[in-house]
Every structure is written in structure tokens, then in C-alpha cells.
């Protein structure tokens, strides 16, 4: 047991507005900054998806005012093919990087990891501040690409070479658009590397007295495991992005082979490899989807336990399974490349770990279900979203069985089946994790309560809406509906357009429902009822034993001392239905894992 908390206390409470709210060293402020960044990003990403969906349902529809976004992209408000792809690329990039990585990991992790570990702050507060501001710069750079001459890149969030590396001849946005994209992502990687470093050190070296690793709540474990992935995954993507930029500005040919001809002109490149980019990208890309989902698993476990009034059937099995996901995530990445021209033996080699990774996922789901059994389930907005997460994770995970098999992948690769799969398992599930965390931790973060009725309406509509959008994607994919198409002109796709129309209506509905959440969030932040006490959900972990909102050094004058495992609920013979980690009350229970 280390007690390094003295190191973090080096900075006192700031007094100026700028140090307090903008260039703050306080992990809690940085966490909120990340949250707000994610909120802005998700709103942009969502509006983009509305425009895309409208276009997919009604391809020749003029969307009033669209030309204001881009005169060349939407002349006369009719979307051009390239503009669809540009919006799609921005939608995917914003969602994956600036929403799903920032909100569950960087935002909640920043705010709550040090508190749950019993630390006064992160060990490297300056790095932490830079982590946010570098990420923020990345976001500004990405958004800036909307305003360069031919708009943002159209190459998809995966930016496959040589389209991404050949320069402006490839199409609109393939010049400066790609350079800005790659620069933005490189910034993002640096930001997350700083963050991961802090998370890892906080977890390993900053825990308070009595806080053994296994006494950390599952949410803290989620962030810790994610930060280890982050450290290794972003460290690969960043150099890949730099090489991509060099192919544009320095005349290098990392990703462009010789002899390519565009518009009857031989490209001035030679010796690069397009598969190299795919390997580098997916070596990052597959861990990335676990970076998006593992914090959600931690948050959902934490929220569920509090609302089930019992610990998980096994604390350790969840931790080990999450760790197994993290390790396996590096060994499966080739399943994105089954038909890429990679050696077909490699495809089989990547297929087996992919099938194996379903085992730890299944274990986690079964433990969740088994723990629900015989619990005293409290229904509130937070627990509803946690339960919704489980449902979405099951639905999205099961389609993974198909995609894991190269032979079936021949049929559904690059179709809407994949789009349905990753939206459910990564997009919606992770969003539900964010919602669960928001409704749950809001009182601790802002000292006020969110409106529960609105929260429940938000849940029910989002749950139904998300299924209405993303389930039909699977059917389309099975019928062979190719993804990343801006309109469906193939004879065999035209009959499927009514399904797309249905999805569009569902997407607009679900999107509109999110405005209820945004309203609830903003209203409650400033006008919501004050949190009745420091522990409104009767939780046990350290964030509930400190003031609301927590003081600058998290715990005031007295550092906490931990006596128990994180989740002492419904302990027999105890004075109450729960025993906090800081309570010295003895526990005589076989559940106490030493």
C-alpha cells in the first residue's frame, strides 16, 4: 500500500477565474471540461447523422438551409455525393474519438478515478491540464476542416490508404481535409497518452490508506484497464497519422504504392503499402472499440451494484474478464481485414481470438444477469440506462458471432450489418453507459439532482428508438446493402429504400428525444433541486463519503481510510443496508474478498 497523496497536494486551490475554470489543474474541473467537450461533440455528431439519414431516405430531398453549411457540398440544398461522405467521416470521427473516448473515459475517469482511489488529485496535474487542451485543439482542428476550400476528408473514420494518402486527386477533401484530420487525431492521441499516464499512475501509486487494488470499485478498474489500452493503442495511431501527413506534405510514400493512375496521370509515389495503413490503423482501432466500451462496463457495473443493493456475484471475475478483453483486443484486430487481400491464413488466425473474445464478454454479461437474480433492484434513470446497456451489449455482441467468421464475413463485410453491429455494441451501448454515469453522478458533480421523470422518458424513448434504428441495419446488411453509399442506385438495393425511410424516421425521433436529455442536463445544472445529502443513492464507494461537490483536494482536511471491499450492500447483521468503504464497522461476511 502506497501513500503518495502528499505529492498531489502540491497545488493549492486556485483563486483566479482562469486558473479555476479554464487552465485548471484540478482533475474534477478537467473532467467536467471533457464532459462539456463530449456534449458539444455529440450534438454536432448527431446533427450530422440526421442530415445523413434524411439524405439516405430521400436522396433528392433539398434540406432547407443546407447550402449554408457548404455551398459546394450542397448546391441548392441538395447534397452532393462527396458531401455525404464528408459528413459521414466527420460523424464517425467525432463520435468515436471526441464522444466515446472523451466522455466515459476521460470525463468520468478524470472526475472520479482519483476520488474513488482516495487520492487528492492526479500525480501530474500539468499533464492532465495539457491532456484536455491538446484534445480540445484536436477537436478545433477537426472542425476547422469544415471550412477549408473543399471541405473535410471523405475517406471514412478509417482513412484507408491510398485514398487518404494520394492527395487532392483522390477527391474533394483528400488534400487539406486529410491533413487536418490526421493532425487532429495526432493531437487527440497525445492528449489521451497524457491522460492514460495519469490514470495509470493514480491507480497504482495514489491510493489512500487501506485501498488495495481489489478494493477499487469496478468503475475505477474500467478506467485503469482502459488507460493501459490507451497507452499502447494511441501510441501506434499517432505515428501512423504523422506518416500519413508526411505522405501529403513531404512527398513520402509510406502508404502509396507505385504505378497508380488517377485521371490518366501516374501518381508520383512509389514503394508504399496500403495494407500497412490498415494494420497500423486496426492495431489501434480494435483496442479503441474496447477503450470506448470498457469504461462503460465499469460504470454500468458500479451503477447496477448500487441499485441492486448487492455486489456482483464475483468482483474479481469481472475485473479479470475486462482485463482479458483488453489483452485479446490486440490479437483480434485482423478481423477487420478478412477480405482485404491479407494472407487468407492470417484471416483464420485472427478469427480464432475473435471467437475467443466472446467468452470474457459472455462471462461479464452472465455475471450481470446472475447478479440481477435475487437482487433488490431500484429503478431510476441511472439503473434503467445501465440495464439498457446490457440489452444493447447483448444485441450488438451477438452479431459479432457472424463477423468473427471469415466465411460469413464474405457476405456481410462492409455492409450495413457491420454498421448495425458497431452502433449497437459500441455506439449505443457506450452512450447508455454515459447516460447511466450522468444520471448517477450528476449530484456529486454539480450538487444538484436531475429530473427523474424526464430521465425515464428519455430512457424509454432512446431504448425503443435505438433498436428501431439499428436492428433494421442488420437486415439490410444481410440483404447485401453496402455501407458508405450516399444513395442506393443498384437494382438490388432500390427495393430496400423503404427500410431506410423507416430508419430515418426512427433516427429523427430518437435524436429529438436526446434534446430532452440536453434540456434536463443544462436546466438541472443551474436550476435543479439541491442534492439532499452527500450520498443520495446510498452508495458505498469513496465519492459518496466526501462533500458535494467535492472540495478542491477531494476530501477536505482528513484523508479517507478504507476498511472494506467497495460494495458492502445488504450485509447480514450490519446496522444499515450498506456499509461505506470508510466506515470502520466490522463486516463478517464470506463476500469479503481479501
Amino acid at each position, binding site marked *: 500500500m502506497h501513500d503518495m497523496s502528499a505529492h498531489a497536494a502540491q497545488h493549492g486551490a486556485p483563486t483566479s477565474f482562469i486558473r479555476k475554470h479554464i487552465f485548471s489543474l484540478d482533475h474534477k474541473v478537467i473532467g467536467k471540461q471533457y464532459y462539456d467537450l463530449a456534449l458539444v461533440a455529440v450534438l454536432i455528431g448527431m446533427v450530422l447523422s440526421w442530415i445523413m439519414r434524411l439524405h439516405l431516405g430521400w436522396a433528392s430531398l433539398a434540406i432547407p438551409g443546407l447550402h449554408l453549411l457548404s455551398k459546394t457540398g450542397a448546391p441548392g440544398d441538395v447534397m*452532393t455525393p*462527396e458531401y455525404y*461522405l464528408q459528413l459521414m467521416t466527420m460523424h464517425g470521427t467525432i463520435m468515436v474519438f471526441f464522444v466515446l473516448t472523451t466522455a466515459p473515459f476521460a470525463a468520468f475517469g478524470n472526475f472520479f478515478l482519483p476520488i474513488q482511489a482516495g487520492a487528492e488529485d492526479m500525480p501530474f496535474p500539468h499533464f492532465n491540464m495539457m491532456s484536455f487542451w491538446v484534445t480540445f485543439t484536436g477537436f478545433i482542428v477537426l472542425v476547422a476542416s469544415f471550412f477549408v476550400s473543399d471541405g473535410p476528408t471523405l475517406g471514412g473514420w478509417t482513412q*484507408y490508404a*491510398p*485514398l487518404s494518402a494520394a492527395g487532392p486527386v483522390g*477527391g474533394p477533401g483528400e488534400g487539406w481535409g486529410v491533413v487536418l484530420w490526421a493532425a487532429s487525431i495526432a493531437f487527440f492521441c497525445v492528449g489521451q497518452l497524457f491522460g492514460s499516464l495519469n490514470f495509470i499512475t493514480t491507480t497504482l501509486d495514489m491510493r489512500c490508506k487501506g485501498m488495495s487494488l481489489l478494493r477499487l470499485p469496478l468503475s475505477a478498474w474500467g478506467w485503469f484497464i482502459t488507460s493501459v489500452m490507451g497507452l499502447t493503442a494511441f501510441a501506434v495511431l499517432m505515428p501512423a497519422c504523422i506518416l500519413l501527413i508526411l505522405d501529403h506534405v513531404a512527398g513520402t510514400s509510406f502508404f502509396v*504504392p*507505385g*504505378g497508380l*493512375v488517377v485521371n490518366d496521370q501516374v*501518381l508520383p509515389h512509389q514503394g*508504399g503499402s*496500403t495494407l500497412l495503413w490498415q494494420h497500423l490503423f486496426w492495431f489501434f482501432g480494435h483496442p479503441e472499440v474496447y477503450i470506448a466500451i470498457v469504461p462503460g462496463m465499469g460504470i454500468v457495473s458500479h451503477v447496477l451494484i448500487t441499485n441492486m443493493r448487492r455486489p456482483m*456475484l*464475483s468482483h474479481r*471475475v469481472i475485473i479479470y474478464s475486462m482485463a482479458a478483453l483488453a489483452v485479446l483486443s490486440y490479437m483480434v484486430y485482423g478481423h477487420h481485414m478478412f*477480405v*482485404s*487481400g491479407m494472407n*487468407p491464413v492470417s*484471416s*483464420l488466425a485472427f*478469427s*480464432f481470438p475473435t*471467437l*475467443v473474445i*466472446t467468452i470474457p464478454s459472455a*462471462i461479464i454479461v*452472465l455475471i450481470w*444477469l*446472475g447478479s*440481477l*437474480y*435475487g*437482487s*433488490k*433492484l431500484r*429503478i431510476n434513470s441511472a439503473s*434503467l440506462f445501465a440495464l439498457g446497456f*446490457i440489452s444493447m451489449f447483448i444485441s450488438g455482441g*451477438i452479431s459479432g*458471432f*457472424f463477423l*468473427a*467468421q471469415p*466465411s*460469413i464475413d*464474405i*457476405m456481410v463485410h*462492409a455492409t450495413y450489418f457491420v454498421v448495425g453491429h458497431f452502433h449497437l455494441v459500441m455506439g449505443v451501448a457506450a452512450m447508455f453507459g454515459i447516460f447511466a454515469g450522468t444520471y448517477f453522478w450528476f449530484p456529486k458533480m454539480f450538487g444538484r439532482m436531475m429530473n427523474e421523470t424526464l430521465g425515464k422518458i428519455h*430512457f424509454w424513448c432512446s431504448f425503443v428508438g435505438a433498436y428501431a434504428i439499428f436492428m433494421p441495419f442488420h*437486415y439490410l446488411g444481410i*440483404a*447485401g446493402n*453496402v455501407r*458508405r453509399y450516399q*444513395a442506393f442506385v443498384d437494382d438490388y438495393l432500390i427495393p*430496400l429504400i423503404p427500410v431506410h425511410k423507416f430508419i430515418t424516421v426512427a433516427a429523427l425521433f430518437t435524436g429529438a428525444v436526446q434534446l430532452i436529455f440536453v434540456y434536463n442536463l443544462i436546466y438541472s445544472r443551474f436550476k435543479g433541486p439541491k442534492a439532499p445529502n452527500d450520498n443520495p443513492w446510498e452508495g458505498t464507494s469513496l465519492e459518496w463519503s466526501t462533500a458535494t461537490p467535492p472540495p478542491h483536494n477531494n476530501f477536505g482536511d482528513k484523508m479517507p481510510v478504507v476498511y472494506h471491499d467497495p460494495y458492502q450492500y*445488504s450485509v447480514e447483521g450490519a446496522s444499515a443496508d450498506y456499509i461505506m468503504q470508510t466506515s470502520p464497522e466490522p463486516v463478517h461476511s464470506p463476500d469479503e474478498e481479501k
Partner: protein
Amino acid sequence: MAKLVAVTIVVIAILSAIPIITHTWPGNISVGLPQDISTHGYLIDEQYADTMIEAGVSFLASQLLLAYFIWRFSSYKPGDKIKKFPGGATGLVVAAFLLVGTEVLALGVFGTKAWGSVYFTPPSPNAMAVQAQAGQFAFYFRYPGPDGTFGPIHPNLVSEASANFFGLDTTNDPDSKDDIVTAEMAIPVNREIHLLMHSKDMGHSFYVPELRIQQDFVPGLDVSVHFTATKIGKYEIVCTQLCGLGHYNMKAYLEVMSQEDFDKWLKQQAALQ
């Protein structure tokens, strides 16, 4: 609220399964796998069907269980005790390994057969060679002509402006002289085709759902696939690898013909060169 959510989950689970089972979407829109016109496709379809059964059962079972637990355990009385799931965590871990483990192992092992039928068997020596070239945003095809050999591709001669799509030098390369370049792909039925895939510019893909074939074109690296079509008809070859603004409209028609029709067609095309 808990009961409403439980019912919602059940309804969604059942509604989700209906189009999978009936292969139709309201309005009589077919959303099942397209018909199969290949010799190897049945292996993929069987694999798909097996997976669908296992996945479908897991999906329904876990969603219904989730719904039931939400319904059942959200209504408790103050004095109720926490109950432990029979078998506990150990039981569940063992179950996961046994059920999911054997399930995925079986799928994985049997699946290699379908994969192998496409990728691990060499094309037979008398397979007919056709070259496909993918470029922004059209496919072109090349038949070797009577000499049976393809002339070399010269990137600097590629010219869409003068319809020299493959960059052939018909004056200097004797092999190129009789090559036949077409915008449509015609193949004889029940004859194995060895498709040589060349990308002119970007990453593209060759996808014919009915043929159960999808393979990327790799710029700078020529790859090949082989297949046999068993049913005469007109099908679509579409690009599935994002290649630029015209990706959605990058396609060609595949005409599967009788041998006689094919010979006639090839003669016609040769005359048009």
C-alpha cells in the same frame, strides 16, 4: 416503470426476430440472404444458418432473462433478503466456457471449411482467366483473346480519355493485340472463373452477393479469386471499399450466359475493340 421496460424488451426481442425468420420486411420487402448462384456458396449459407440458430437462441434467451429479472426483482419487500444465483459465479463462468466456448469453437472449426473452399483451393488449371480492373469509379474487364495471355499493363499509357483503360500497348506488345476490354463482365455458366484483380488507383472491392464473393482490390498488389456461377442471369458487381465520391455508383453487370451465348458475346466485343 420496471414492468414497462421488461415488456418493452420482450416485445423488441420478438419483433427483432421476425424479419430474420421470415426474411421479409413489412411491405413484402425481401431482407434475407440473396439467392446463391455459386458452387461454394452453400457452405457459407450453412455456416450462416448454423450461426443464426446459435446467435438467435442466445439473443432471445438472454434478452428474455434480462426482462424477467427486471420484472421480478424490481418488486421486493423491505424485509426481503438478497438471493444468490444457483451455482454462483463459478457456475456462470463454467457455463460461459462450456456453452459459448464450444459454440464458438464449433463455429470456428466448421467455418474454416467454407473459407477454405474460397481461399485455400487453387483454381483448377482449365479455369477461365478474366482480369478485372477497378478504378474511380468503374470496373473494366479484360479477356486474354485467342492467345490466352494478357499483355502487360503500362500505367503511363492508361488513358480514359482515349479509352485505353488498361494501359495496353497494342503496337509493341504482341500479347496485348488480341486482348478484349469490356465494361460488362460476361462469363459462361458452370465454368470455373479465375478472376485476376488489379486496382488502377484506390482500394476497391468486388462484391457479388449472389456469387458469395467479396474481395478487395489492393493497389500495388494483384490478388485473385476463383468461383463458378451455376445460374444464367444478370447480376450486379458492386464496390464495397470506400474509394471516393462515386463509390455508391461504382458497379458493373455480371452476365452469366450459356457457353454459346458467351462465345457469341466475346466475338462481338472483340469486333468492337
